[in-house]
């Protein structure tokens, strides 16, 4: 049903008049023009569409836009608004991407991890990142980048 849904998007108020059962991914990409959030599988199996909603990593391909009403949504476009975030810097430094298609989802999933667990062990990183897929095989460097960002973040993101 068409409704006006308001939420905070990358720190600014946002409002869309849409069928509120639609998935956040397509509203972000098509209605709001934020194409940094990627389609990969459509069934919450790959993590390419990951965004942050109220500090949690969620799969935007499977999150109805009505479920973010009144909430804080952060996409990759919002993360480095005031200079690159430590995680982005670390991904750059370690070349923790190849094709880059999974990268926004990887970075935001890592961001959620460091919010919860500022100094994760390697095992915690692996467990937390497990359901984000990368076909190029940048995994080794992604883990290194998250470790570095955790160090650089000095206990807080």
């Amino acid at each position, binding site marked *: 049903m068409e409704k006006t849904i308001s939420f905070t998007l990358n720190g600014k108020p946002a409002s869309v008049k849409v069928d509120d059962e639609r998935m956040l991914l*397509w509203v972000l990409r098509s209605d709001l023009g934020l194409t940094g959030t990627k389609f990969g599988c459509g069934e919450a199996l790959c993590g390419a569409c990951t965004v942050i909603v109220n500090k949690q990593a969620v799969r935007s391909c499977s999150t109805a836009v009505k479920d973010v009403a009144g909430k804080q949504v952060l996409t990759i476009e919002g993360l480095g608004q005031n200079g690159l975030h430590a995680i982005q810097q670390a991904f750059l430094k370690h070349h923790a991407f190849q094709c880059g298609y999974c990268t926004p989802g990887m970075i935001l999933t890592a961001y959620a991890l460091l919010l919860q667990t500022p100094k994760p062990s390697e095992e915690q990183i692996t467990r937390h990142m497990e359901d984000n897929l990368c076909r190029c095989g940048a995994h080794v460097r992604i883990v290194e980048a998250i470790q570095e960002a955790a160090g650089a973040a000095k206990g807080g993101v």
Partner: protein
Amino acid sequence: MVVNRRGFLAIAGPGLFVFFGGERASAYQQEPGRIPARTAAAADFNAYLRIGADGRVTCFAGKVELGQGCGTLLSEILAEELDVAYEQVDVVLGDTDLCPYDMGTFGSMTTPYLGPPLRAAGAEARAVLLQMAAEQLGAPADRLRVNAGVVTDPASGKHVAYGQLVEGKRIERHMEKVAPKPVKSYTLVGHSPADRKDGQEKVTGKAKYAGDFIPPGLLHARLVRPPAHGATLKSVDTTAAEKLGARIVKEGDMVAVLHERPDLADRALGLVKAQFERPQPSVDDKSIFDHLLKTAPRPQPVGRPAGDVAEGEKQATAIVEETYLNSYVAHAPMETHTAMAVIEDGKATVWVSTQAPFMLKPQLAQAIGFAPEKVRIIAPYVGGGFGGKTAGPQAVEAARLAKVTGKPVQVMWNREEEFFFDTFRPAAVVKIRAGLNGAGKIVLWDGSLVGGGDREGRPFYDIPNQRTVSAGGWQGGNPPGMHPLDVGAWRAPSVNTNTFARESHMDVLAAKAGVDPLEFRLNHLTDARMRRVLETLARQFGWKPAKGPTGRGVGVACGMYSNAYSATMAEVTVDKSTGHVRVKRVVSALDVGMTLNPDGMRQQMEGSITMGLGYALTEEVRFKDGEVLDHNFDTYTIPRFSWLPKIETILVDNPENPPLGGGEPPIITIGAVLANAIYDAAGVRLLQLPMTPERILGALKKA
């Protein structure tokens, strides 16, 4: 058809232009049907560079950035030869209007074919600029120094920037024979730049892929698809979809639902009632191997035979014959096939996730009835290819729909379509019969490759009596119905299959001879480069010679691809109660001649090892009667973070040899090295990829 130099210059504006090609490059990358390079004016180049009045250096090449970092490598080479800062170099790739013809980005060919001429072109441009600077500064050219694009006369202290030299001028040069710098003097090439060229855009979400171009009025198209290959559409009812506000296009075999929101197009497609007639029951992922053997064409010899296999049979005191199998494997790039087409003023511009924009251009032109010069293909960042994006059927769909609707149209396949229309790595059957003499030397090798293709099918080992034949493969030309699913190039086509079979069989023979598997290989190798790669690898790995199986779970495998030498050692554990394999450590060594971008090469090696775990352990496409049963990543399992072994990469640097590409060679050994390590751990030989827990348990039960 030939886009000539004038065409480029009209677009490219003023500055200094150096056009370049090179013998190997022009032989390989020449446009089909083009007259030989040297007799055709302005046709003997396949890339060019421009130095603009702003001092920026731009390289135009028809390659595509798939993630392999080609933009980074090309920039590095130019910065080095021109003495400009890496940050001053831009790369324009994959645009058929701006870049000269290029066959496509595959086969690890960017480095060997474009690297050397690019070095020479940079050197040429530098020489021209130095001559101009010499005139302007009134000093001999050989006295001048260049740093970050500024030419200085140390005697007078006067200086001038490259940009100033070319300002308001248009200078065209074809590459002459100016020698590039000696490799030893390089400070950037061979040392890796600080950042990848595509880094900033990729970590900020600004990097644009084909699906990210969203012009006003864009319609998203979803197409009615058959449930199985070979199914035919009998009837279609689109009434309900139309009620949802979707536009319907029926044209020939195509039924499409279009909407300005992609998800609403998808919802509308769900309301289309389509009746298909399914094909006759045929073959599935279990019966495929018998099917391949039955339908294979007449085998053709691979490479030159040696000696006489009948003589080998006589000399052999022990003969081992095995049949190695692998299933269809998907490319599964994270970005599905995507295209967006705009038709304006009789010209079609299509942004496409493709590895081969120049191959697509004439096909797409023909499909929409346009002259080729009225079609522009742009391959922006591509979200992974691995050989799966060499054709561009989704671009043809988008262009046809843009033509019908008069609106820009995007086609983005969903994951199910991606699995359904993939050009899989072919299923294959490799039979090898080999014999040893009393001294433990191989005296017979009789190989038969069916379905997978012939590349690297002939062993590089010293074997006096050998022949290998091949029937059918990934390149097409197979008898109709031999491969019931579309097949094509998959990262190192043929070679994963053939290396798995050969290197597994080498281990079988080593065990039969009672010799350490590494020593057994070295006993049959005179190629100094392969020996050096293996020996370097063994030192780093800490290989302790023993006859297998030792229970330690270690394995070795080596192979060649596109003239590169690759060898891998691995350590695994096998849980004998579950059949689960844990890969603990993988060490990979690679000789690609001179290494231009060591960190880029390591990224490719790490990526190859990680991706290789998938085809070795879990990945196989299940299908039945033309229906692809895997639709998404829930049943088709690709490698994940928890699978990661400790990965170590060794670049066996060989600066005297020309540089080779490294995106494919390191993956070819992964199937065999894990099969060999599993054998060493559990004492069972896995003859079929992937080596799933079920197959391992099955082998353990039989043992």
